[in-house]
């Protein structure tokens, strides 16, 4: 499980290109920086009010310097602090090149559900709605199925939707999908998985990308 999450994060890291502004959600997305090449210079934004976050401090964490999940961070040269209104101004305005978020469900049209499981988990929406609305590119990273083995890539979301038509790519431990014009395409299989695995674990109908490849 931990390993699967790392594999997903490692694959997601390939989507981060030099010179991007990137916002990472909690969970799997937060592991992405561990897999970036040295030649990739990006700025990470946190919606609580930082642009230019650096790695987790090894010691002497500053209680007033944390990311949106409340975890201690550092800043790089050129970083800035600002208030939450400006932080979300950047996000809605389209200044975030790439947002990588966790998801509970994604449907074939790119609708994202990740804020509530009615009657069970009620975490609340946080900044997800704005990131999904504003980011130029939104990648959902998640385990392919939920804890009960049910597919999370669905025909219709049974959970309340966070934002419609926003997910552009889905990365799981089994496969990578793209969503273009509200159509779901299989891009590639992840190492160790077959097309049958994808078909057996995906509820939504999908086509194959022009450049579909089984492995990297």
């Amino acid at each position, binding site marked *: 499980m931990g390993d699967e999450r790392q594999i997903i994060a490692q694959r997601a890291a390939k989507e981060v290109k030099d010179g991007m502004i990137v916002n990472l959600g909690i969970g799997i997305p937060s592991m992405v920086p561990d897999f970036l090449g040295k030649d990739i210079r990006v700025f990470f934004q946190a919606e609580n009010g930082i642009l230019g976050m650096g790695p987790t401090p090894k010691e002497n964490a500053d209680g*007033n310097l*944390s990311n*949106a999940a409340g975890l201690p961070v550092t800043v790089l040269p050129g970083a800035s602090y600002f208030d939450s209104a400006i932080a979300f101004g950047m996000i809605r305005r389209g200044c975030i090149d790439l947002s990588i978020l966790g998801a509970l469900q994604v449907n074939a049209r790119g609708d994202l559900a990740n804020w509530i499981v009615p009657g069970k988990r009620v975490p609340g929406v946080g900044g997800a709605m704005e990131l999904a609305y504003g980011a130029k590119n939104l990648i959902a990273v998640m385990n392919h199925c939920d804890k009960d083995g049910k597919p999370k890539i669905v025909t219709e979301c049974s959970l309340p939707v966070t934002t419609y038509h926003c997910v552009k790519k889905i990365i799981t431990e089994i496969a990578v999908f793209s969503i273009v014009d509200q159509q779901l395409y299989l891009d590639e299989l992840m190492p160790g998985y077959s097309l049958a695995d994808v078909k057996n674990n995906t509820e939504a109908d999908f086509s194959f990308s022009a450049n579909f490849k089984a492995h990297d």
Partner: protein
Amino acid sequence: MHLFDKVTDFATAQSAFFDGMTLLFGGFGGVGTPPGLIDCLIDSGVKDVKLIGNDAGFPWIGIGKFVCLERATHLLASHIGSNPTAGDLMNQGKLQVEFSPQGILVERIRSGGVGLNGFLTELSKGTQLEYDKPKVNIGGKEYIYEAPVTGDVGIVYAKKADTFGNLIFDKTARNTNPYVAMASKVTIVEADEIVPMGALAPEEIVVPGIFVKYIVQSKGYNWKWVWETKDK
């Protein structure tokens, strides 16, 4: 209390709290919520409070400590994920929770703080977070109306305050604090350090003192626990 000397003690600040008040609180996941004023609020005994802020904090940090006492009737926030007690109270019908997208909530506070009458957005359109908010048609397109928010009292955490109430903040402890200061009828600032007027450079001031009513000296913050506890 003169315009140029707003420094007072917690007891005086406490007198601003009252049953049924709408309380705005600064902070994001507990970071930047004034710890001394939370204790002061708890100690005041006030009840039936309507809370507005980014989140429900942690049960032991930020507004979370107060939420757990069941003396708040309403909470307007973007999430309560870090405070399971808030979720329990909501499910038991003891706390009415309204969720708002995080950036929309701080803009609602700002809208009240700068004397405007709310704004339009398409952000939550078609989702549960529309609630029964008014829809407004402009040029053939439908938007959600987001109402301004103001507080009877606002509690703010600052790094430094001068005696007039000019404020600067510390890193990510800034978050919603500037707008909470602007949007509250009675803004109470807990500052790590209180300095004379003139000690802050006019250029570095984030919130001008005009928005501040009381300043109290902080005894220090405690939210390093947020993740220290998580790590254990």
